[in-house]
């Protein structure tokens, strides 16, 4: 991609970078990439037990809202419970803009 980007595109990319600019949110994506379909309660338990992060549920809920706003996390209801899924598509935008040469191709 070259030249001036449309405003909507620039906003999407800005949201993705802002969402990724936080270690807790990157860890949430790591855990969802490994296994998604998780509740807020699951994610809080994983962050506490595996990563020693003792944030409040409200704080984790806000992190998830930022990830969802950037399109990196989607949610779906199963019965009365809300589950969170990893949605990597916005990350593909970054590699499309700045392609990384694969081993042996340069």
């Amino acid at each position, binding site marked *: 991609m070259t030249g001036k980007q449309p405003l909507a595109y620039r906003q999407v990319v800005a949201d993705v970078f802002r969402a990724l600019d936080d270690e807790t949110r990157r860890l949430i994506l790591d855990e969802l990439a490994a296994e998604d379909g998780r509740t807020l*309660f*699951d994610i809080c338990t994983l962050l506490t037990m595996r990563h020693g992060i003792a944030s409040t549920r409200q704080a984790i809920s806000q992190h998830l809202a930022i990830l969802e706003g950037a399109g990196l996390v989607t949610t779906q209801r199963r*019965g009365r419970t*809300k589950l969170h899924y990893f949605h990597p598509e916005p990350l593909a935008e970054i590699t499309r803009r700045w392609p990384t040469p694969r081993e042996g191709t340069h």
Partner: protein
Amino acid sequence: MRIRLTSVFVDDLQHALEFYTDVLGFTEKHNIPLGGGASWITVVSPQEPDGAELLLEPAGHPAVGPYRDALVADGIPLAQLTVDDVQQEVQRLTDRGVTFTQQPMDIGDHWVAVFDDTCGNLIQIVSAKQPQP
């Protein structure tokens, strides 16, 4: 000070009594008619018949619905029950048609899992990896 009784809100008292006894395996301890179709019902573990009682509290109060809906939406359990082996219990209850919102999770010294009690609540079960003294 001691804890002898705790409670969970339940949508339907008779259904809850059946689920907590037939499916989970607790024993009815008190069933005291209060008139007007209401009853004061508690269950206990058959392993500890004189231990803590769980009161099945009708969920009729208008505050209960929004409170429980918000907890269930976020997957937060309302109570925690101790079992000998979480994996075995998950298998046993799944075979009985119980839905788990959290499959067995390793949290270090313990295993945990969360199920829907069909009475409006999520309940966590926990087992220690090493037998407790």
